[in-house]
């Protein structure tokens, strides 16, 4: 076997040190692409306790897992990560490197692109192989979808949630390879305190049902009603951007091209007009329900069910009927 491999996935870990769901999805995607071009797929895990995630990734589709377990890597430092990955890639050339389109991926991959001289496509919603990689991504705020080819030998991509599919565990797992390099001590960036915002009852990305409100909710009180509905449906509360800007809900609730990308089985959009930036974050939902007082609102064109009316009148009746049906 040659000691180069074709596809490399950058792992991100949750606080309990296991790989994030998106990482597993990327590995599934990498696996599929690798199979189509007779390549191998590897993962890179940097972090304190990196061996934990590494073992899981080795069982979830990675032929090889490079890992570096070091207390200096407990927090993402862009320059440290970039240095380690750059030298790993120089020693083990790959043709494609994938990262999640997360605050880490968005920060790290452009750095690597320019230090390695590699073409990068960010925010991919699809990657295909037809003799070369074809990357698909939204442009113009979601008003168009571009197909992009990378012209350099190494291609880099950040990928959204739910583009790939996580693979079930299988054995025997891939090979674990410790990275034989110390994290660089010299870095110009100091990463200091980390602050968490209230996460809400249920994380948006995982929810089967998302109930989102827009500018037309008029204030925080409106979101109380949405919370009630979300509880009833066992879902999470999201929002378009104006409620976040107005401070009615934390910014972690924002759905859209610069917020979270969700694809729940059911998405309820209340008092949301349906801008392309918002649609870009929820357009792949299973069923979409829109409640809006403007019959001309664009959101109705992209929904499966629509009610024209003021949410103040529609929602209470909707809620009590749902309760009645559920208890019957």
């Amino acid at each position, binding site marked *: 076997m040659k000691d180069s491999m074709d596809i490399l996935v950058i792992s991100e870990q949750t606080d309990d040190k296991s790989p994030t769901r998106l990482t597993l999805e990327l590995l599934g995607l990498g696996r599929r692409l690798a199979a189509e071009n007779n390549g191998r797929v590897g993962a890179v895990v940097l972090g304190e306790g990196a061996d934990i995630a590494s073992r899981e990734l080795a069982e979830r589709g990675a032929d090889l897992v490079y890992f570096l377990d070091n207390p200096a890597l407990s927090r993402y430092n862009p320059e440290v990560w970039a240095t380690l990955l750059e030298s790993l890639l120089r020693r083990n050339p790959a043709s494609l490197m994938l990262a999640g389109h997360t*605050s880490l991926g968005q920060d790290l991959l452009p750095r690597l*692109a320019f230090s390695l*001289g590699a*073409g990068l496509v960010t925010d991919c919603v699809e990657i295909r192989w037809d003799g070369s990689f074809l990357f698909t991504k939204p442009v113009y705020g979601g008003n168009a979808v571009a197909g*992009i080819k990378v012209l350099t030998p190494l291609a880099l991509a950040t990928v959204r949630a739910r583009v790939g599919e996580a693979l079930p565990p299988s054995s025997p797992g891939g090979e674990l390879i410790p990275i034989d390099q110390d994290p660089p001590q010299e870095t110009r960036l100091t990463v200091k305190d980390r602050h968490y915002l209230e996460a809400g009852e249920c994380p948006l990305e995982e929810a089967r049902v998302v109930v989102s409100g827009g500018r037309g909710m008029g204030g925080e009180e409106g979101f109380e009603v949405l919370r009630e509905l979300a509880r009833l449906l066992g879902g999470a509360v999201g929002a378009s951007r104006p409620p976040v800007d107005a401070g009615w809900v934390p910014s*972690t609730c924002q759905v859209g091209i*610069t917020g979270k990308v969700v694809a729940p089985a*059911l998405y309820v959009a209340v008092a949301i007009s349906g801008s392309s930036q918002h649609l870009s974050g929820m357009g792949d939902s299973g069923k979409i329900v829109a409640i809006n007082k403007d019959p001309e609102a664009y959101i109705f*064109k992209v929904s499966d069910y629509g009610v024209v009316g003021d949410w103040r009148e529609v929602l209470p*009746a909707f809620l009590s009927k749902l309760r009645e049906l559920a208890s019957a």
Partner: protein
Amino acid sequence: MGLHIVVLAKMVPDPEGPPSSFEVRSEEKRVAVRGLPPVINPFDENALEAAIRIKERAGGSITLLSLGRNLSRAVILKAVAAGADASVLVEEDSLDQALLDSRSTAVLLAAALRTLEPFDLVLCGRQASDTNAGVVGLGVAQLLGLPAVTLAQKVEVADGRVMVERVLSDGYEVVECPLPALVTVSGEVGDLRYPSLQAIRAAKELPQRIVRLQDLEISLPIEAWVETVSLAPPRRERSCRMVEADTPAEAGERLAQLLWEDKVV
């Protein structure tokens, strides 16, 4: 003497325009924009606002740097009037944004920035609303050897260092680095202030420099690293079942009934 801050500001078709004003011409691989005025990319406006706040506290000057073809003087003027001190336009017919990739744009902007030295801080948007890329800022930093911090919701400068609150999916972290540095700015920073009419009038007198490609130390052509091979309209329209009823409350009830019957809930 204060700080010299450069803000990278890209001109884009108003991203808040209705979907119908973005016509996707697949054969030409280009989006034709109808009836939408150009604006400064919203995140670049946030970057300018962050720059103005820093200047208010620490003193100094702000230069607005924009690259493209046929840049609207009115749009530049309004942005400058909000609180910048000068503008530099890298302008040439060949600089069609739809044809430049992130790499080429970064190379050109880095070369233009070299003509503006010395500067302490470069602020740019986290991403442009047309490319939706978020690549150019970090590219410029890498080409100029500057430390860079991305996704700022707050930017402060003190003692030769920049402190950034960096947006994360579940909160934020604080990142610091020495100046000169580059920071990419997110919407959480806040909207750009409106200039007064008086400020707009005064801004007409502020220095504006037009830079041509031949003024820049770059070797042409710049090699692109990616190529757009297709462009299509998004597939998003669905056939919507409108719930009819005499009152909104009744419609709400019927919606519940319908979703229940269709096993959606």
